[in-house]
């Protein structure tokens, strides 16, 4: 590093990396997702998961939930930049360990195998309110709604029981109690 001849300064101390869940309310229009995501990709930040859907049909507003990891300074900068975007209405930011916020993800698992394997699969995810959405002689499609790390565990466990396909959503978030984020 000391031999570098770049025209810029030496990086200072890196801040600690934290996982943040950023929630953005936006006008539901073409290109808005690209604008939001561009603030992350332009800084070389990966988005861990993403969930977007219209939540207010009358006002045409979508809610975007982004899970990402970054230093406090960069997260702060992204939040301030998000607030400056024309189609953005409001921005909320939570840390993953925040007790006042509920986070949920959904996953669909397809398991294929004998009746015995299938039952074992079902048993493996019993703790997490598994719902069977589709049943054939050979297969199950199981729906799970849980935390990210729980889905990670189930996913790992099901590998032994004929898991052939996984599909997961991004996290969605909501504060506990009667308060809403303004």
């Amino acid at each position, binding site marked *: 590093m000391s031999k570098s001849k770049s025209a*810029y300064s*030496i990086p200072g*101390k890196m801040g600690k990396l934290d996982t943040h869940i950023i929630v953005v309310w936006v006008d539901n229009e073409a*290109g808005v997702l*690209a604008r939001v995501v561009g603030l992350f990709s*332009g800084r070389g930040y990966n988005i861990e998961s993403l969930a977007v859907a219209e939540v207010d049909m009358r006002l045409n507003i979508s809610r975007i939930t982004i899970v990402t990891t970054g230093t406090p300074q960069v997260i702060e900068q992204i939040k*301030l930049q998000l607030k*400056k975007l*024309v189609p953005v209405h409001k921005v909320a930011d939570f840390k993953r360990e925040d007790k006042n916020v509920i986070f949920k993800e959904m996953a669909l698992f397809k398991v294929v195998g004998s009746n015995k394997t299938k039952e074992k699969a079902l048993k493996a995810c019993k703790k997490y309110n598994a719902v069977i959405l589709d049943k054939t002689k050979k297969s199950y499609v199981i729906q799970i709604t849980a935390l990210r790390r729980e889905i990670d565990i189930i996913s790992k466990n099901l590998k032994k029981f004929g898991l052939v396909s996984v599909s997961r959503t991004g996290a969605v978030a909501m504060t506990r109690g009667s308060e809403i984020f303004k």
Partner: protein
Amino acid sequence: MPKLYSGAEIVFKCLEDQGVEFIFGYPGGAVLPIYDELKNFNSIKHILVRHEQGAGHAAEGYARSSGKPGVLLVTSGPGATNAVTALTDAYMDSVPLVCISGQVPTHLIGTDAFQECDTTGITRPCTKHNWLVKDINDLGKTIHKAFEVATTGRPGPVLVDIPKDVQFKKSKYINFKKQKKLNGKVHNKFSQKNIDELIKLMDKASKPIFYTGGGVVNSGPRASELLRELVNITGFPITSTLQGLGSYPGEDSQFLGMLGMHGSYEANNAMHDCDLMINIGARFDDRITGKIDEFSPKSKKVHIDIDPSSINKNVKVDLPIVGDVAEVISFTIKTIKKIKPNFAKSNKQKISKWWEKIQKWRSINSFDFVNSTETIKPQYAIQRLYELTKNKDTYVTTEVGQHQMWAAQHYKFDKPNRWMTSGGLGTMGYGLPAAVGVQVAHPKKLVIDIAGEASVLMTMQEMSTAVQYNLPIKIFILNNEYMGMVRQWQELLHDKNYSESYTAALPDFVKLAEAYGCVGIRATKPEELDDKIIEMINTDRPVIFDCLVDKEENCFPMIPSGKPHNQMLLGPKDQKQNKITGKGKILV
């Protein structure tokens, strides 16, 4: 039944309602309907450039010298991509631009049609906002919204992409009324409490400094006047960034000159040693701060900025004040007058030691250079240019490189909006087209582009524009045959390996001027410089001035070597000069 207008007509109706007088542009297939309509709108004059980048920089020059938004009109595909550099430049330096681009017809979008590109996709990261207008009924309000976004809050460029079929389609047009409350997205968020806190800090400080930037210029001429008053009643020293030059008189005794990498010794040392730094409309750019960890370690920092995302971006501050510079200063002055009418007097004693220290730094005379009777020193050329033009309310643009820094050091401005330079993006080729735009806005004024021979060749074609519209811009080239700043870095950091920084074949600029139909003047000796400059000033046509200068002059002082503000490299006159080594090479 209300009258229906075509999309092309609506574009001009909007521009008319926005008070646009000039647009800079270049026609092409996807904007032909708009160009067809031009003849019906006499209040709007079109300036035909030679390259869309030129249109963008000209619009920037127009905007920065007039305070009004610059408008450019380009075609789809290459027209739009050529404008990207100028849009990015405007984004970095907060210049309000409205770019209207043509697009292929709606049904062909996404088919790789002729001259198609994803214009809104390409320009998304270099504009404040952009729109692809697919419905004719949205066109009018979109263009008005575009002007609003470009000019409010922290200004910047926007782009409106209009497919050709939308330009033909017809719709109603609702006349636009300028709303009183224009700042939809950014408000003045400061309170009286912030101001009181600021005054408390100012009262306590014994080593204060104002550090002002382009935000003062962008806030309008009133902000500059208020700034002068504030500096006057406080008695504090003031330094300015490259972009802020002119908002405070360059020859005033309280002004320490520009700060930063090539700033003055006194400004940088004062920044390093101060106990209170009041940043007004600047953004702690890396060319200003040097090594962040050692940037002004002992000071309380106040940051006044209209853009909340500028605060705590590079440097943590103690007191952020989000608001328009003029408003904040105005409140501050009012409050001082109310609660501390004798501020200056009571404070004078307290900061007198600080001023003594500053005078000591000042006596080093860090912009000094070794003059010569044989060759023209570039600094000398700018000093002479300044002396001979300072009473003419001159507008100066620059390209990017050594000449730009010398101009910033030796040309003194006493009014805002007189100095147009590409600071953030550092775009070589900015100055010539910007001068075109400045001259369009101020046809009777003297407009000079202080240029380097390498930069100016990047957009030289715009001389043709200047000639076409009788814009008597003066291109003052400090010709050292090198990309000077590259050469300087190579000398200091890369063991004098001048890799590709020498231009072995340059045009004869005097003949080139004649070829364009303007006037060429060449100066080679110091003794003829004054006469030639006067000849240039007295020529009422565009001039290319080829000033042959010392080829190996370096730009000093400079902050080198991973070092903080208080360890500057001074020029050749300074004996203690230390060599830049190891780690330090990175910072230059």
